[in-house]
């Protein structure tokens, strides 16, 4: 029970920190901007995590869907003159629709074929954006995307307001992820990740479940992309590119794929490291490359996975010394699974 309380306390502490963060940096717009941007990436990476981490299907079209969300908002606001909120809603729906269509085809392939297939699909999305100048502005991109429209008295002109808006969406994304992970649906995804064959013999329709997981995964990317468009206010085709998707993947793997805290930890770590290492921006892969390789080899579940196995190690040592065995339902609580 104390463990649950500790975890809960930890979550509350992080939440308070994230709420107070802007107050500490109220005069430093740049720091707020970077943090808001990081939160947007985290939303997208949570989506990637649902599919790759919890369902075991690595899609490399994720940046493509991020771009679809961003361009939907961009085009709908600048060209069709739509209200940002309506544009954002439509952006998520469009992303889900395209995700559905692409998912049906892509999910006919498995494992690395699926990864390669989605990599190609992501590249096609990039090309489409790049070439469709009339709609997307091609290589020049879209400029002048408006900030979110005011909701009553709440205006989004200040970086602080944008920060809180994005934070709200991030919390919503985390909430949805947590609900999914700890549900029967989440267990179903987990079973598919574990072994598709076994899942099928358990009566699970793996095709439909993977497709639903794919669509929910890209909806996060679409939402993040839409928010990105109105934060940065200028978008170019490179946000659909392979560099972008591998950046997402790197953040996720280092933080901990298939863990709940992984996307946050990986993204924040890298974003702030990059800020400090900005002087050697060009050489950053020289540093990150080897670190990434080592993590994949030794800690396949990233930083969070490493911390968990350490804690698990201490816990079993404590348990062994006290020789207490619990088999009651409290300790087998459905929620006592991984962080």
């Amino acid at each position, binding site marked *: 029970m104390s463990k649950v309380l500790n975890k809960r306390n930890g979550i509350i502490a992080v939440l308070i920190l994230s709420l107070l963060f802007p107050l500490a940096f109220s005069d430093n717009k740049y720091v707020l901007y970077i943090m808001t941007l990081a939160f947007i990436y985290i939303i997208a990476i949570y989506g990637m995590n649902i599919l790759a981490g919890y369902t075991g299907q690595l899609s490399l079209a994720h940046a493509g869907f991020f771009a679809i969300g961003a361009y939907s908002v961009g085009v709908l606001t600048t060209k069709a003159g739509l209200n940002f909120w309506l544009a954002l809603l439509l952006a998520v729906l469009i992303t889900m629709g395209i995700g559905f269509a692409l998912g049906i085809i892509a999910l006919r392939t498995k494992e690395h074929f699926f990864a390669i297939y989605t990599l190609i699909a992501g590249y096609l999305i990039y090309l489409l954006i790049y070439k469709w100048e009339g709609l997307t502005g091609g290589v020049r991109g879209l400029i002048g995307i408006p900030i979110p429209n005011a909701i009553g008295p709440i205006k989004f002109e200040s970086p602080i307001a944008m920060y809180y808006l994005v934070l709200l969406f991030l919390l919503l994304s985390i909430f949805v992820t947590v609900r*999914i992970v700890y549900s029967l649906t989440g267990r179903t995804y987990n079973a598919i990740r574990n072994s598709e064959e076994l899942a099928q013999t358990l*009566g699970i329709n793996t095709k439909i479940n993977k497709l639903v997981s794919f669509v929910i995964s890209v909806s996060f990317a679409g939402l993040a992309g839409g928010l990105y468009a109105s934060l940065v206010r200028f978008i170019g085709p490179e946000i659909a590119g392979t560099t972008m998707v591998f950046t997402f993947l790197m953040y996720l793997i280092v933080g901990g794929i298939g863990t709940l805290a992984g996307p946050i930890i990986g993204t924040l770590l890298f974003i702030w490291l990059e800020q400090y290492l900005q002087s050697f921006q060009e050489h950053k892969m020289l540093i990150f490359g080897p670190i990434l390789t080592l993590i994949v080899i030794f800690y396949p579940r990233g930083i969070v996975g490493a911390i968990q196995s350490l804690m698990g190690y201490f816990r079993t040592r404590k348990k062994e010394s006290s020789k207490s065995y619990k*088999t009651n339902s409290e300790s087998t609580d459905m929620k006592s699974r991984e962080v």
Partner: protein
Amino acid sequence: MTFIKLEGLTKKFGGLTAVDEVDFEIEKGKITAIIGPNGAGKSTFFNLISGFHRPTSGSITFEGKDITKTPPHIVARLGIARTFQTTHLFDTSSVIDNIIVGYRLRTKSKLFDAILRTKREKREEKEAFERAIEVLDFVGLANLADSPVSTISQESKKRVAIALALATGPKVIFLDEPAAGINPGETEGLAELMKKIVDSGITVCTIEHKMQMIMGLADNIMVLNHGAKIAQGTPEEIQNNPTVIEAYLGGESSAEVI
């Protein structure tokens, strides 16, 4: 009505005939064993019944219903459960977490229920949990519920795999070499478990290499060799069948080997 009926069941992989024109019936409420040398087509035979492979020709009928072309997840829902020759458990999860999902096919909660945590979701989660505890208790592993699968013995893993199959609420369970890789004492324990499963009303069909175990356990035995059925009958009949002794036991006298 026959419980499970196979007619002319054939599976070819390219030029190789893994299962060759097998006619067979599996009786309800009995323990049926499939034996045969390595590569005889036993696992393939299971893969056909559970819907993993489409037969090249022939048909499979379950309780009067043709399931020859039924996909595996539907076969499972109809009440046919199976285990694999190598267990596919999720090592880093606890035993109970591995088993809860076995009840998933009897639940209806969707993604929507998960996100909104509807009444249905909560009720079905509870049902799945209770079902998992029940089957764990049934296979005698209630005390390992919280242990990570990676920390339990090979024999326990076999039992977890069986518990998982039982969690689906099957009418028949197909076990692919459940006693492989475990010691004689544990083998006896598994034989007991199979009897317990049959006594609880679930038909058992098992692939087995351990002759001693199977002769004392099975009601009915089918012998496969190079994909073809070369014999079927009670353990006594099989032990005295010259074709079996010739083909399967390499010509030695039955008394020495079996």
